[in-house]
């Protein structure tokens, strides 16, 4: 994951992504997804570039990016743990998992450790409501999570 990119590289990469999506109706959202896939977050410097490429105002582009929770302004940690806090997972102990993550890492949902090791986040439903509580670790969904197992996942992530 590249966290700092020089202007020329950014510009070329953004132009290539825009070109790949230009034929679609309403291409901005797929383009921002592609940018996040490329850099792991949506760097602030792409806003004016996208505005120019798509003939939108910078406010429009910023407005779309900031509306959606998926789009990060800053890179995530090397391990991202997303805890499902939907009602079905609450009914089987999601709250204890949030507490466990806070105790082990000092992080509340949405925060990243200063050393860049771990991001803890919350999500409202992963669609695994019969096998909760559900947690997603680096994109992989894990069912029937418990605090012991989560603690060992976090131990490993903090040490990495």
């Amino acid at each position: 994951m590249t966290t700092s990119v020089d202007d020329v590289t950014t510009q070329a990469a953004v132009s290539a992504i825009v070109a790949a999506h230009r034929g679609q109706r309403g291409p901005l959202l797929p383009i921002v997804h592609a940018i996040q896939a490329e850099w792991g977050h949506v760097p602030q410097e792409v806003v004016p570039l996208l505005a120019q490429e798509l003939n939108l105002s910078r406010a429009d582009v910023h407005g779309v990016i900031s509306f959606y929770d998926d789009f990060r302004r800053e890179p995530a940690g090397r391990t991202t743990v997303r805890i499902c806090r939907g009602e079905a997972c609450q009914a089987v102990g999601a709250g204890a998992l949030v507490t466990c993550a806070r105790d082990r890492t000092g992080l509340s949902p949405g925060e990243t450790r200063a050393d860049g090791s771990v991001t803890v986040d919350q999500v409202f439903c992963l669609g695994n409501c019969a096998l909760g509580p559900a947690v997603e670790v680096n994109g992989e969904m894990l069912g029937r999570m418990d605090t012991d197992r989560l603690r060992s996942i976090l131990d490993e992530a903090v040490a990495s």
Partner: protein
Amino acid sequence: MTPSPNSPNSPNSPNSPVTVYVPRDSAARSVGADAVAETIRTAAAELGRPVDVVRNGSRGMLWLEPLVEVVTPEGRVGYGPVAPSDVAGLLDAGFLDGADHPLRLGVVDELPWISQQLRVTFARIGITDPLSPEDYERHGGLVGLRRALETPPADVVAEVTESGLRGRGGAGFPAGIKWKTVLDCADELKFVCCNADEGDSGTFADRMVMEGDPFMLIEGMTIAAHAVGAREGYFYIRSEYPDAVATMRAAIEIARENNWLGDRILGSDLSFDLHVRVGAGAYICGEETSMLESLESKRGLVRAKPPIPAIQGLFGKPTVVNNVLTLATVPVILANGAKAYQELGVERSRGTQVFQLGGNIARGGIVETPFGVTLRQLIEEYGGGTRSGRPVRTVQVGGPLGAYLPTSMLDLPMDYEAFAAAGAMLGHGGVVVFDDTVDMAAQARFAMEFCAAESCGKCTPCRIGSVRGVEVIDRIVADEEREENLALLEDLCDLMTDGSLCAMGGLTPMPVRSAIEHFPDDFLAREGTA
């Protein structure tokens, strides 16, 4: 029971491979299905026993996942839940011949949990390989589309109307009436959109359709396109469902290769293509007008209605917006006729509903049955009570905006009107069970907190009301001017119900009020806080 004549191989001759099914559904994967599939492949190879591992959808008996099935002369014999460490013992016991083992469940089709259901929309899910077009056609796929393509559009719309099919997303609006509005629009450009932004906690049927029978959904979309005169369609799938996104994209490619999509579909005059768009973590985009804004790559702000999307929808053009389960049910209605579907169900809730049992439940999963089944039957007979073994205290039906019901209301029949009359809603058929450790004031507070987090912000009752709701509930529980604050909360709920632009702010009071009404003691001051 005899083995299906369509089995990919004839079982039990020592040299022909044994077909073993291990689900690819993401719920099954979340408890180790991938590792189980790999271990079976490797261990069987070491024994020199050829196996053909097929990754099917899930049968919906999720507490048994990973549920492994072996094709035998008796039928498909199930073993579950299987851990990778069980595989060696299963092979020793002879599970590839259907032999006995502590994890053996019997012939899956004959298990009461499945055989008592009436699987109409979920008929193929768990049985077929979701991405095999041959499997799809062998199990009744495309019959509905072929019939639709020989039928004038207006007659297809009439058939859907007569079936009594209502929108499964939660609102329950008759699908055929929506389609007729779009058909009657003269515009050249029209769209069909599938709302696959299944964000309600406790619902996972849409996900299982997309992962387990994607061609059915493509077929339903194509029938809708023919019926209303659209040439272009979109899936809006939430980003929390990466497996569903990947499966739908793969299925669309396969459908194009088979001329199930594209120009002159199956030799007819219909040309239609489909595209997948991925959401970005906004619950509100499950609201249809917000979804349309998001499909247009804008902020997911709710639109005022009218104009209704059927007349001015995506990019201002006439648009069918239906939920996954609605569109997935269209092919079977066209295949078997409106009458067959209409005969199922009760009152004005016709056909079957796909109920989803989740939360603190012993046997969670998919129960498809005609409308009219009671909550008690679902929770006790199918669900087996709580997973924790403690008594059930409350059940939330219909997602985060649905009511919390006490156990005294478990005999309520599952139908749209009966639920509405009881101050609840059926929604998307999600049933979330809580045991007696639940704190209902905390659940009411969460409903407001969730609304505050997920409100699109366009209207004040929802954007501000939800924040005030959290504060007022905190004061009530802290015993600060309790009576005044309860009255204030009541007033706030009225305002949000009547004044919000959409169901997000409009229905958030439902879980809050039901919690106060049925569990008032939970709102008394806490020890140490009073």
